[in-house]
């Protein structure tokens, strides 16, 4: 866990607490790099390992393979079938979790110090001696298909799928990484082995460790665990330029509340204006109760339970998303209010006071994120994947504070684009655009 320093205790109400996470870069003998926060307060540690690529590495003819492969990682390894593997993990009171997203496959291991070697031996077999037994494959495939069937009648999932296909087209981002009923039904054991080889390689590997472990021990563990992986895996696809037509697309679906997603071009994480955009989004729709969208749509008009907007800079495209849901007879008003707010923010910008309040919140809330070993490990891996410097945590609030109202309003003018702002509405909305097929 980290320690914080209070740098200033002035009488100004909003003196920010500054996070001083002591991250150490560990170079292993075998040439791997990891970030470590060593803290022996509690007798356990968390190691987070991320492989860049994720479900976007799927062979187009085997969509869903990386996702299913990831789901099978806990279904046995080496000489243990899935039951034997689970029994061993339970008796060690450890957890291994595996996850696949558009951009990465993640492994998170949490273990008591006394059981560290045995847990690492298990994880080593997961990576180097996978089984992909046919009965496990069929069982987990059944779970994925069940979830895909549920998505087919879930308004949120329908909206996400429709919007993704519209803006990303044939790019992997344009379809769900879980695959389709047809593609998943056709996956074979060979597809699992191919996906394994596509994903796990040294040239795309990021590691964060937190807790009761020394740099020396971590180095030895990582060399043993990851040193023998191949140098490279499947090529990462090219970036995609998302296309936004603007307007509203309605997907008819018989349900009382319409679900709306909206999207327009976003901003890259390494863009010099990213922080200005981040502060701007906080005021527009990112700041929960305090955002303009929440104020106008929920507080003033009672049109929704919640409305949010998010900057989503992914590896291969950056999009600015939002989501809201209103009863079928009220969603048209919601869409119209969002469009008005979008246009007004672009034209008139934000006030000095709003920007000051947003910066106070964002800088004050930042240290609250580092609340636990697993959380810190995950943040550290994310920082590495975003190519941020190791001292980023100490300087991040300065970057937020450096944003001026002029920056925010210039970025609002340049970024916010009411013309391109595309809505997908799933439900039976009254008084909204034409239906798609």
């Amino acid at each position: 866990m980290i320690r914080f320093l209070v740098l200033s205790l002035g009488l100004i109400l909003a003196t920010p607490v500054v996070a001083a996470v002591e991250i150490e870069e560990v170079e292993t003998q075998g040439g791997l790099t990891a970030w470590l926060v060593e803290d022996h307060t509690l007798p356990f540690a968390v190691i987070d390992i991320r492989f860049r690529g994720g479900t976007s590495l799927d062979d187009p003819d085997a969509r869903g393979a990386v996702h299913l492969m990831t789901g099978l990682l806990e279904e046995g390894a080496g000489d243990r079938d899935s039951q034997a593997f689970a029994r061993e993990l339970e008796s060690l009171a450890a957890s291994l979790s595996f996850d696949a997203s558009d951009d990465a496959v993640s492994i998170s291991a949490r273990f008591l110090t006394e059981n560290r070697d045995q847990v690492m031996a298990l994880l080593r077999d997961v990576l180097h001696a996978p089984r992909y037994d046919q009965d496990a494959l069929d069982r987990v495939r059944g779970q994925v298909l069940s979830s895909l069937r549920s998505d087919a009648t879930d308004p949120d999932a329908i909206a996400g799928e429709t919007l993704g296909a519209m803006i990303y087209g044939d790019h992997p981002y344009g379809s769900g990484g879980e695959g389709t009923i047809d593609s998943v039904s056709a996956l074979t054991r060979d597809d699992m082995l191919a996906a394994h080889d596509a994903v796990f390689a040294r040239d795309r590997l990021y590691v964060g460790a937190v807790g009761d472990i020394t740099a020396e021990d971590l180095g030895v563990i990582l060399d043993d665990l990851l040193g023998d992986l191949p140098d490279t895996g499947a090529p990462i696809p090219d970036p995609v330029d998302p296309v936004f037509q603007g307007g509203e697309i309605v997907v008819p679906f018989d349900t009382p509340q319409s679900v709306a997603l909206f999207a327009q071009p976003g901003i890259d994480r390494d863009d010099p204006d990213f922080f200005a955009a981040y502060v701007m989004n906080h005021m527009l729709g990112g700041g929960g109760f305090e955002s303009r969208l929440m104020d106008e749509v929920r507080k003033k008009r009672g049109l929704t339970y919640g409305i949010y907007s998010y900057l989503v800079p992914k590896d291969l495209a950056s999009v600015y998303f939002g989501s809201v849901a209103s009863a079928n007879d009220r969603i048209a008003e919601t869409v119209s209010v969002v469009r008005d707010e979008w246009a007004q923010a672009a034209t008139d910008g934000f006030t000095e006071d709003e920007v000051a309040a947003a910066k106070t919140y964002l800088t004050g809330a930042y240290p609250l994120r580092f609340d636990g070993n697993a959380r810190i490990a995950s943040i550290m891996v994310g920082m590495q994947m975003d190519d941020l410097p190791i001292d980023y945590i100490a300087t991040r609030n300065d970057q937020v504070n450096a944003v001026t109202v002029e920056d925010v309003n210039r970025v609002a003018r340049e970024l916010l684009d009411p013309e391109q702002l595309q809505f997908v509405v799933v439900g039976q909305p009254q008084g909204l655009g034409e239906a798609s097929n």
Partner: protein
Amino acid sequence: MLISRAAALVAMLCAPPVLAQTMADAVTEFELDNGMQVIVVEDHRAPVVQHMVWYRAGSADEPAGSSGIAHFLEHLMFKGTDTLESGELSSTVAANGGRDNAFTSYDYTAYFQRVAADRLGLMMQMEADRMRNLRMTEDEILSERNVILEERNQRVDNNPRGLFNEQLNAAQYLNHRYGVPIIGWRHEMETLDREAAIEFYDRHYAPNNAVLVVSGDVTPDEVLALAREHYGPIPANPDITERVRPQEPPQNAERRVIYRDARVAQPYVARSYLAPERNSGDQDKAAALFLLSDVLGSGPTAYLKQVLEYDQKVATYVGAFYSGVSLDQTSFDLVIVPAEGVSLEDAEAALDAAIASFIETGVDPEQLDRIKMQLRASQIYALDNVDGIANLYGRALTSGLTVEDIEAWPELLQTVTGEDIVEAARSVLVPETSVTGWLMQDKEVTQ
């Protein structure tokens, strides 16, 4: 403000970041003169604090006909007071770099803020203010009522599983308010007004009906001083009485609920049984039930998963759930999602057969050892998250349990035997108190 800041600084500089070795070590309990219970959970690793006030009032304490009023009031608590504008509490928390929210359940309503530790006094000042001085206008009431109706749309009406669960609960409880949804029945929500909100507020919101739970970088002495300053002056409400709700009559007929909806893509079977809850000084049976739910449904080696997912392959998913933290009688729940090509009828029969064979065979002692080992380890992992410990105390203390009960629980779980678990299954998993639900696809799919 200045004094508490200085105290915080001194505490931070002097106290090494030592952490308690058990949950109980981290926790201090005391009571204010006006009857407000106070719990402090210490963790000095980061200068952050979570401040929560839990009221011993939830949806099961509502008057008949006003379902949803406990939750509606929770929303209205973010409107103004005599000295705070509407929304000012949240914006003040945000302006101090903090986050706030609230939640409502059957047995409690809780409000919380997470913020830098030196802002604790300000949080208490505002929370104490709205315990007494809530004000709201007619316009705000109408607008916020639309918000909770949209919340109901989102959580329940737009989701066949939400609607199905409401019907199952209503069938499980013949007389108790646990059968009424926390968010409320729509037709009653539509009639909720200022008068009903104020009545619930006046009846239940008082220091002697609340628990203050502060976790993070604070010392018990600091919390006590601040709590005396901010909550101390609020008089106790002498009309607060013990919570006595209508209880269940004997349940002697198994019930079936069939819910059809065109939006259902994945049918499944849900089964619940009326079950005893954890009671103060009497948690043995609940401990056995807690382990029963682990033995049957937690993790890949659980009995039902082995039999129904791995061996017979009739289920895509099977689970067992029991929490036990509840003021009145609760339920033990099972769910089975049939594998493709398996009917709900066959899945239900396989589930019943598996339960019967479990009671016949008994508990695998190695599995029980593994579960107990995991429970012991979870006590260590829990120390990494003091806000989680704070939640656990808040929930238990508003559900009829004491600090002693909470602290006895982990050890109690370690003493449960395989025989205790089978006996719990035999006595609780009986048809007479059960509800079996089928969530089915409507024959006519209109899309």
